[in-house]
């Protein structure tokens, strides 16, 4: 690790004061499960690390007036699992349970989990994030099958972000001045970098996500399904989160489908959602939506198999949300 300055402020304002407006100079430390490893490998080399775990306002799960829940950025994943307010949001708890590591669950935070750095073994071996031939010409078995026509071929790392996206979560973001407080739909927080040095999210270096705010579910169904090879915390090969609302005929009248681990951002599939509209929630509808989700996939040289896995993930997420057997191992 390069040496750095360290501060552990106790308020959001202090955090903001300590952050640089220059990219790469300051890093926010929460659970440390991603950042510390990256710093050890000198892939991330900040001049200052700001530990936000001592800020009390970031540590709570609160109900929001009129329904919904606000989750502080440094709430740990095990706290979310245990919290009754999250009972209506199984998509989130499915994703957290899938992490399969007590340590990652009790050390990792929600904010840290969704903003962990990209999943790409070239990047994590010290190479550039964007493709210069190393990814398209190399072993890209875990890389993107959607949104990969530019130089971004990595996949977004977060296991929970697809769930938050289908649940229409918004990020509460604060910046140097009071007028900078914003509520940003989570899906809009992620972006596909087009040039080296650009981050995989739209946050400025001196902004802070304080909370993720979930609207009420209002009787809707939601779930996450991850295709994982083993029982450990290894990342899924593909995942999908869905949220569904049924009309009084028990037919789908609203649907959101977001795939994970398949694109440089959480990947929203309008095609899969459209395929569900007006359908009864059964195995046939799930199958059709799965196929629709991957119709536009553009696999790279080594990851064609992920197309089927993405399809299966969508299908099984829908079945799980519907309370039907997902099948499989």
């Amino acid at each position, binding site marked *: *690790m*390069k*040496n*750095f*300055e*360290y*501060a552990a*402020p*106790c*308020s959001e*304002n*202090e955090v903001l*004061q300590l952050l640089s407006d220059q990219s790469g100079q300051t890093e926010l*430390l929460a*659970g*440390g*499960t*991603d950042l*510390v*490893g990256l*710093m*050890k490998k000198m892939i991330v080399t900040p001049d200052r*690390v700001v*530990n936000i*775990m001592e*800020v*009390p*306002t970031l540590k*709570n799960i*609160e*109900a*929001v*007036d*009129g329904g*919904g829940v*606000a989750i*502080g950025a440094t709430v740990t994943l*095990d706290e979310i*699992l*245990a*919290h*009754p*307010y999250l*009972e209506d949001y199984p998509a989130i*708890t499915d994703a957290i349970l899938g992490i*399969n*590591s*007590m*340590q*990652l669950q*009790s*050390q990792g935070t929600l904010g840290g989990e969704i903003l962990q750095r990209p999943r790409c073994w070239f990047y994590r071996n010290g190479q550039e994030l964007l493709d210069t031939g190393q990814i398209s010409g190399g072993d890209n078995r875990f890389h993107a099958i959607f949104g990969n026509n530019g130089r971004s071929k990595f996949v977004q790392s977060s296991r929970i972000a697809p769930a938050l996206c289908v649940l229409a979560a918004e990020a*509460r973001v604060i910046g140097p001045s*009071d007028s900078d*407080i914003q509520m940003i739909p989570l899906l809009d927080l992620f972006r596909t970098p087009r040039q080296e040095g650009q981050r995989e999210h739209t946050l400025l270096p001196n902004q802070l996500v304080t*909370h993720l*705010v979930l609207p009420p579910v209002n009787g809707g169904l939601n779930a996450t399904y991850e295709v994982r090879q083993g*029982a*450990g*915390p290894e990342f899924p090969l593909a995942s999908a989160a869905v949220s569904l609302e049924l009309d009084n005929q028990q037919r789908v009248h609203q649907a959101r489908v977001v795939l994970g681990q398949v694109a440089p951002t959480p990947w929203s599939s309008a095609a899969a959602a459209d395929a569900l509209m007006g359908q009864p929630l059964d195995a046939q509808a799930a199958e059709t939506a799965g196929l629709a989700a991957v119709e536009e996939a553009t696999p790279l040289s080594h990851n064609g198999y992920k197309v089927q896995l993405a399809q299966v993930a969508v299908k099984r997420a829908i079945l799980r949300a519907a309370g039907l057997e997902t099948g499989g191992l």
Partner: protein
Amino acid sequence: MTKSNEYTDSSRATVNRRSFLKGSGAVAAATALHSPAVEAEPQAAANVVSGATTITLNVNGGDHKVTVEPRTTLLEALRSQLELTGAKPVSSDGSSGASTVLVDGKPVMASTTLAMAVTGKNIETVESLGGEDTDAVPRAFVKHDAQQCGFCTPGFVVAVRALLNKNPDATESQIRQGLNGNICRCGTYNNIIKAALDVVKGGV
């Protein structure tokens, strides 16, 4: 899922969305819901620390002074300054679980925790489970031969202790699901399951 009694519907405090947006709601809710000691009024800019600094870590029930840099991990501090070498460095990114310790009762990887980030917290290492009144978990590891080379063992012992602290009646299936944050290369998993189950049954 464990339900906590403190969150009943009647006590369901809410945060007003508009004031929350403005930045005041969350603070109010936090103080209302939780410990009265929390006071989040901004102070002067927080202390920025650089270079070697002496801090106090509370480890295994006692306060210990260690001199660390901001980049020093808890694992390095424990191993090189407190001679607590039970927690092991196996992977630099915490993916082996070999550096597992308890911080305020929760299992975390000391290898991805900065020493300065855990001042004021209760840190328990595997060594706290040994000594005169040896804990049932390490004893069960011996009884069921749940170790071979032993390098992953301290991390596993702490993980089992954490799992059983949270769920003293863990079933075999919960144990199989709950102990996947640790890696063993010699292949001791089946005996670890037996050891954990034996602790649940009070057999050691």
